[in-house]
């Protein structure tokens, strides 16, 4: 079930979101996908570095990453809502 479309840059901390699309150039896209940031993946923002620094995110496939905020703005996400009890 989905609620809203936004980018990872605007995702609330500690809220599960799912990547729906990646927008970027040919340098960025393969690299992002290789790291585990690809369409369908669930991501959670853990924290943001001070003064508009990078975001600390956890990816569903395993692994945590520091992601530049501008780059996170190229990652389109939707909020994941789970049925109560799971």
């Amino acid at each position, binding site marked *: 079930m989905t609620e809203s479309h936004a980018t990872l840059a605007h995702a609330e901390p500690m809220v599960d979101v799912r990547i729906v699309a990646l927008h970027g150039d040919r340098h960025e896209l393969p690299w992002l996908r290789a790291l585990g940031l690809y369409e369908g993946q669930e991501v959670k923002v853990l924290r943001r570095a*001070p003064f508009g620094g990078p975001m600390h995110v956890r990816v569903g496939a395993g692994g945590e990453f520091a992601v530049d905020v501008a780059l996170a703005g190229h990652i389109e996400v939707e909020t994941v809502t789970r049925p109560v009890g799971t």
Partner: protein
Amino acid sequence: MGRPNTGKSSLYNRVTGGSARVGNFPGITVDVLEATVELEGSKGALRVVDLPGLYSFDSELDADTDEGAARAFIEREQRDNAPFAVLQVLDATQLSLSLRLTKELLGQASRVALVLTQSDVLASEGRTCDVAALSKAVGVEVIAVSSREASTRDAVIALAQRVLDGPARELSAGTFDPEQVARAVLSDTATVDEQQRKRREFTERLDRWLLHRTLGPALFVLTMVLLFGAVFLVAEPASGAMDATTKWLGAKLSPRLGGGYLASFVTDGIIGGAGTVLAFLPQIVVLTIALELLDASGYLARGVFLIDRLLRVFGLGGKAFVPLLTAHACAVPAIRATRILRDPRERLVTLLVLPLMTCSARLPTYSLLISTFFAHRGALFQATVFVSLFAAGVLSGAVASAVLRKTVVRGRPLPLVLEMPAYRAPEPAFVRKATARGVRNFLSDVGTTIVAASAVLWVLLNVPMPGAAVDPSLQNAPAAVVRVNRSVAASFGRALEPVTRFAGFDWRINVGLVGSFGARELMVGTLGVIHGLEDVGDDPTPLRAQLRAARTADGRPRYDTRTALSLMVFFIFACQCMSTVAALRRETRSWRWPLFVLAYTYVVAFVAAAIVYNVAGWFSR
């Protein structure tokens, strides 16, 4: 090969018994470890290579970076039709990510097998991986191992042999879906999230403190201050011990070599130069150990996370922090450390500004000038000058980087994407080996250049300039002083005087600058020689007295606070280090950038020194 942080190096150590050495591969400058493993029953030997971690074959990479080297190595071996097999190491706890790389690898190499690590971790969590199903899905042989078990070595070697002896596959990227395969082969997947969550708890707890918005940066600064403290704590006694050793060795050797020119050349030129290099070694060891511990524990990635925003202001990224920090001990290992930077432009700018950081080789000159000309101001003032010099190095690097990013090296920087590994205890064996590697690299990179610079300087200071007249005021001076006065170096110094007097440098200081062109650590010793003093490295007190007492023909002090300030400013900027120039040449594979660094740092150094000298003149009137 495999993604970073998959346990690749642990497995490699298990297979090779830790006997790795840095391999020499044409076209690859990055350290690629290799070892030879003898096969049982005299069946020959296998050459085992540990490639740097790689995320993807598809993204564009500079071949001089760690990742680029791994990809270039596989592409070259495949192209050359070499008898080689690629064993990809997969972390069983992050299987789908590793399988994405497998998919690409199958299109790059024809003899491939997979080695699943962390199977012991899986087992301890009550999970299993269906190796046969995984092998069937991917289309190549798979084994599951634990690097902690001794039997792993034989299993991996046998696998390599089977793949080498078996038929070569057609090159074609895999068609499987990594996530589906991962889900299908891991049993008990319903609890994966729960198990992983448990393992993450420790990291989460630490991150709450270490990445806290205010406490995090403060703790990071504190860690760096402690690291610096440790580096400088060893600096002083180390150089003292090395001076004593070279002096002792010189005294032993000099009589055997007849005590003349040859003895002086060998003891002052060669052994003295070698001693200078070795005096830096303890600092390099401390810094390498500290950085390895921080890296292996997972904290270095947190540091990059915290400092990225600040460095972006100057056109660099968080990862540039590691080479910039290293450059405060020595620029040469820092130049190697830029290989972790994926962005070629960021890497180039980092290389170009590294020589501005306050390396340890500047410290003897700073210390001499401060203690000579600011002694009357008290300890706190002197300490402030010292700290200001460090700050000036960092600031000039930041400004230079911002300017270069807008002029010479334009272009959008690659945004930061960095894996933040879970915290773990560093393995002592890794740290030991990395340190040994750091020491070896330092000696080979710096050693020959400084010894050569020291030898050339000896020649310049001792060979008389044809036709050079002796200053009449030196009639009663010691022979050594007369010799230096007539030397080639002194003639250079005098020839430069009409220009350098704008910065307050007379010919004697110029000789020091000529002497320290190859290696700035030779400055204090050269100034000592000019003033007829030997071994000022041990005790600069007589040199301090001479510098303070020196008078010009009209009786005014020859050197004063203005001269000291001007000379310090010159040392902040000038790239007086041929080892750095040679390392830049190696990393950029051209003379263009090292010559650019020499040109811009010397021009800025001289102009800034002249400005400071003249502005200070207005204040002292």
